[in-house]
Structure formats: structure tokens, C-alpha cells
């Protein structure tokens, strides 16, 4: 099976055959990956070089931590690549949705329905961990709907407003 893998700025083609033999960009390598009883902890020995990693699944992709640095890794096989292509075509909508990237309490809404906003303009302020976080307009547009109010506790990915 062939995989197209993006990790940070690197893009690699990794092929894994039926016996578990592995080729990176056409070059055969020795790779031995072991998962610990702690499910996010892995040991990888790659051509006798030993690495300890933490790998977790985040929103369908992989997040690997090694040497204190985090790498987001996207692994695609032929089928998922095809699906991703279809999604990209179908995903063009006229509305922009502003979501809260984290849970917290809405402490200020600086626009009202019908307001024209510029890209980067502050729309909502959410307090979390004693910090005020300003959420800005991803693009210029008009405020179509506000789905929250001041004082509301919001969860991660709660839709705060939509822009038209």
C-alpha cells in the first residue's frame, strides 16, 4: 500500500508491502515500531536509530511529539486522497462560520447582525483561563447571525456567528 505523508514541511511517499517491508521515496529502510501499554507511547527503530515518540489521533490526522517538538502528520492513501478532492470541490459555501476554538465564557460581542466587517476585525471576546481571547473575522463580509450572547458558556467549536 502506498501512502502520501506530510509531516511539517516534508512530503514523503511511503510504501508498505504485505510483509511489512517499507520504502521511503523508493528507498528500502528497516523500521520497527512498537506501541507501549501506554497507547500514545511508541518506540521507533529506524535503521538502528532509536526514537521515542508520542503519537495521538487529532481530528483524523496524527500528532507526533518527539524531542519536545510537535509535528502534525497527514497520511493519505489513494482512496482518502480521492475523497479529499471531492470534499474540496463540494465545500465552497457562501457563508463563513465563526467558531470558538476553545471553551470559555463570552464576555463581549463587538458587532451586531447586519454590520459590515473587515477581515481581521474583532467579533467576539471569550474569556478562558483568566485570559481574554479575541476572535476576528476570517474575511470581510456582513454579520448574518449571532448565535451566542454575553455571559454564555461556550464549548469548543460552538458556532458563535455566521458571516455572509
Amino acid at each position: 500500500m502506498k501512502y502520501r505523508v506530510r509531516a511539517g514541511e516534508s512530503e514523503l511517499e511511503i510504501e508498505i508491502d504485505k510483509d511489512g517491508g517499507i520504502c521511503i521515496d523508493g528507498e528500502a529502510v528497516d523500521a520497527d515500531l512498537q506501541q507501549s501499554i501506554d497507547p500514545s507511547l511508541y518506540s521507533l527503530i529506524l535503521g538502528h536509530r532509536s526514537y521515542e515518540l508520542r503519537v495521538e489521533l487529532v481530528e483524523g490526522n496524527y500528532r507526533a511529539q518527539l524531542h519536545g517538538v510537535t509535528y502534525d502528520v497527514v497520511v493519505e492513501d489513494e482512496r482518502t486522497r480521492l475523497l479529499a478532492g471531492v470534499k474540496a470541490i463540494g465545500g465552497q459555501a457562501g457563508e463563513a462560520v465563526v467558531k470558538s476554538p476553545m471553551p470559555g465564557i463570552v464576555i463581549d460581542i463587538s458587532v451586531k447582525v447586519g454590520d459590515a466587517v473587515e477581515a481581521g476585525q474583532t467579533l467576539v471576546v471569550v474569556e478562558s483561563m483568566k485570559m481574554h481571547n479575541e476572535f476576528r473575522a476570517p474575511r470581510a463580509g456582513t454579520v448574518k447571525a449571532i448565535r451566542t450572547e454575553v455571559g454564555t458558556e461556550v464549548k469548543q467549536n460552538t458556532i458563535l456567528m455566521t458571516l455572509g
Partner: protein
Amino acid sequence: MRENKLKKVLIANRGEIACRIIRACNEFGIQTVAVYSEADRNQPHVRMADEAWPIGPSPARESYLCLDKLLEVAKLSGADGVHPGYGFLAENEEAAEAFEANEVTWIGPSPKAIRLMGDKLTARATVFAAGLPIVPGTGKSQRMTDAELVESAPRIGYPLLVKAAAGGGGKGMRIIRNPDDLREGLRVARLEADASFGDDRVYLERLITNARHIEIQILGDQHGNIIHLGERDCSIQRRHQKLIEECPSPAVDEALRQEMGAAAVKAAQAVGYYSAGTVEFVLDNKTHEYFFLEMNTRLQVEHTVTERVTGVDIVKEMLRVASGERLRYRQEDIRLKGHTIECRILAENPWSNFMPSIGLITSLTAPSGPGVRVDTGVSVGSEITPFYDSLIAKLVVWDETREEAIIRTQQALREFQIVGIQTTIPFFLQMLETPEFRSGNIHTKFVEDEFLLKKTRNEKLERVAAVAAALIAHSRRGRATTLESAKSHPSAWRLLGRRNAVDNRL
């Protein structure tokens, strides 16, 4: 084991500092009483204490800040002491008074000291009277004419700030870099101050542009003895939030240390201070002048740094002082040995402007080894909630020299694995690499004005991450296929591991 008069201490706090205080109590054989909000039922401080009492809903104002609930727990549990930690009620004069009135010893300074140092203007006036330098300025109380302000400007020095007496939030504030601009600056500032606050009084204050945050740790007893434990340099901060603290400061030599230490002791004496406290100064990098900022009348997050270089256990000393013992150290006993750096590991995403990172800690490996101390209040299964501050661990690293301490801190940061949330670890790894930090040539605006977190490319590690993820994806795919065909056999990468183990046998 040494005896302490206190028998049972209520810890009116949570997180790492609650755990820190519980440890110190245990070492004295003092019983501990933890409190917890709804969000904190499964946090380590609850499990570590001898007793645990619920105090209400998750928001701090409905739990950890409820003085009546804490007094009730103290009474019902029979606690004879209370340690407030930092934050919450730690610098609340009313809380200190109320506990004392209920015969529960406040493990901290007197309510009077908290009051005198709590109000910024009173504190400035108090320490100024005691002979401490404060940031040069005209003072904001009386009305001054433009002519009087212009006349006093040379004494203050440039650059200076014109500030609104009724001000706040930068309104009515002007930076003046040379004398020719002063009159116009005064005019504009007065207009803005009048428009914003209906009060056009303005005053002048020196603007220190290249400043360090240097603070002196104080320790005193109830018999009038008071000493300092040297300085901490907390110049690496972001939005006034300290990120790295170290001792000794690269900018403070022994003579300056003793001078600032003596000044801090004077400030503490002026309010009859006892227990642990911190006197904060701003130090001008260019002129080496220092000015009083404020005094924190509590245990601080970064007390650990001082503990490591002086060998003094500050929390245990607080317990001793609270039970009436005399200080066991004289000033000449205090020697700084080696160098310590603390990194505050926060649940914040350094890649997206330090946005809070909320979630479940699914796994955790803390670093260890010589000179490495980790104070944490979370464990696997801890939920990081939006209700409290984002500090999840303090990494405190000691070595003989600053250079070695930096190297050892980097090693410890690379070992630190926290899974499930984003942390400031990548920020520290890069900060410790900068020539500015390495040379010690830093100031309080360095993080905001000069430092840029970079997406550094490491092709080798990216390749390692890619291979691991591809093998995991392949294995998951294999498992999915296996389920479909209702067969069960070991996953593909386990087979691979075995195959390689056989191949590599010598």
C-alpha cells in the same frame, strides 16, 4: 521528625501549589485538608490530602474565592491553620482577618501588611518614606500647571510618560522622547484625559524602555527578624505573565544583590512583615538604577528557584514562622549556589498566540535526573478546564553555571511529554536557543517585541514522525480490514517488529 505547633492545615487552593504545600505539611506530620470545586474532583491535590471537602461549582468566585465556605470547612474539619497559596484569597486582607478571628492561623503575613502593600499608591508612599527608590515622577495627587510640569521634567529624565491622573487603559498617555515635544504632549494628553475621564490632571513619570524585572525574596519571623534570599530575574514575560524565572540574575552582581536585598528588607520592615514575601523592582539595563514596583504579600509561583539555589525550603519556613518559631537563618547564612532556571509549562498553544489549550491529559512523562525538579498539580486523566489559570507544571532545573543550567533545561524539556493538550514546551526550547537569552541580554518586552517563534525545519525528525504515522495508519487500516473479514491476527506493525527482531538477531 521535627514538631510543629500546627496540627491540621487547610489548603485554600488547588493545582501544583496545593500539592507543594501538602508535601511540606506531611514532612512536619501536619494533617492536610484539601478543598475542591466540581471541576477538580479528580485532581491530584484531592487525592494527596488527608481530608477533602467540596466547596461548590467550578467558577472560582463560587468556590475557591468563597471565604464563608472556606471558613466553614476550617471549622468543620478542625483545622488550626490555613495556607492560601498564591492567587485566589492569598492577598486578601479580609480573609486573613476572618481566619485569625476564628482562631485559624493564617500562614502568611499579617492582615495589616497585606493592606499596606495591597494598595499601590500606599505601598509606594510607604516604601518611599522608608528610603527606597521609586520610578522618578511628579506624583499624581496634586494639580500641576504645564509650567510646573515642564520645570520638573529634567529631574525626571527622558524618555518620559505623560499620564492621566484619573487614567487607565492607556487613555491620556503620551510618550515624550525629547524636551521640545513636552508642551504639545501635555496639551494632547490633557484633552484626551478630559474627554475620557472628565478630569484633565496629568503627571509625569520616567519611561524605562530597556528594563528587567528583578525581585527579592523576603523571609521574616514574628520576632522582628527579617532576611532576604537573593533575587530572581523574571524578565522573560508576555503580557505581564512571567514565563521564565532564574536565579541568580545575569544582570546582578554581589554588590547590587546586597544593595537591593537591603532595600527589600527595609520595605518589609516598614510594614512589620513576617512570613514569605517578595519585593519587586524594575532594573534599568542601561543605567543599572532600580526602582520599587510592588510587594507581593504571599508565596510566589517561582519560589522554587530560590529554594534550589539557597537550600531553604520556603514553604516549611512559612509553617515554622506561622507557629511562632524564630528564623533559623541569619543573613550571612544565605549563599547562592549554582544557577536555577524555571520554565512555566502552561496549557497554552504557543503556535496560535498562546491561546488556552483545553482538554484531557491522556498521558504524561515528566523529566527527571540530576538537578531536575517538576512541581505539577495534574496527572494522567486530569481535565484542563477554562475555569482556572493555565499553569500545569513548573520545570525547575539546577546546574553549577548558567550555561550548564540552560543545556540541562533543554534536555529536560525534550524529555517532557504531555499528551492531549498543547503546551509552551516548544516556546521554551526555542527561547533557550536565542543568542539574547544565552547571553543574558534580555528585557521585559523581549518576548513581545523581538522574539518570534519559528517553524523550524528538522527533516530528520519530520521523516521519523512520517514513518511512525504511516505505520500506525497502515495498522489501523489492517485492523479495519480484519474486522470486515472477521479474522483476528496481530496488527501489521507488530508483525513487522517481530520480523525485524528475527532479521536483526546476531
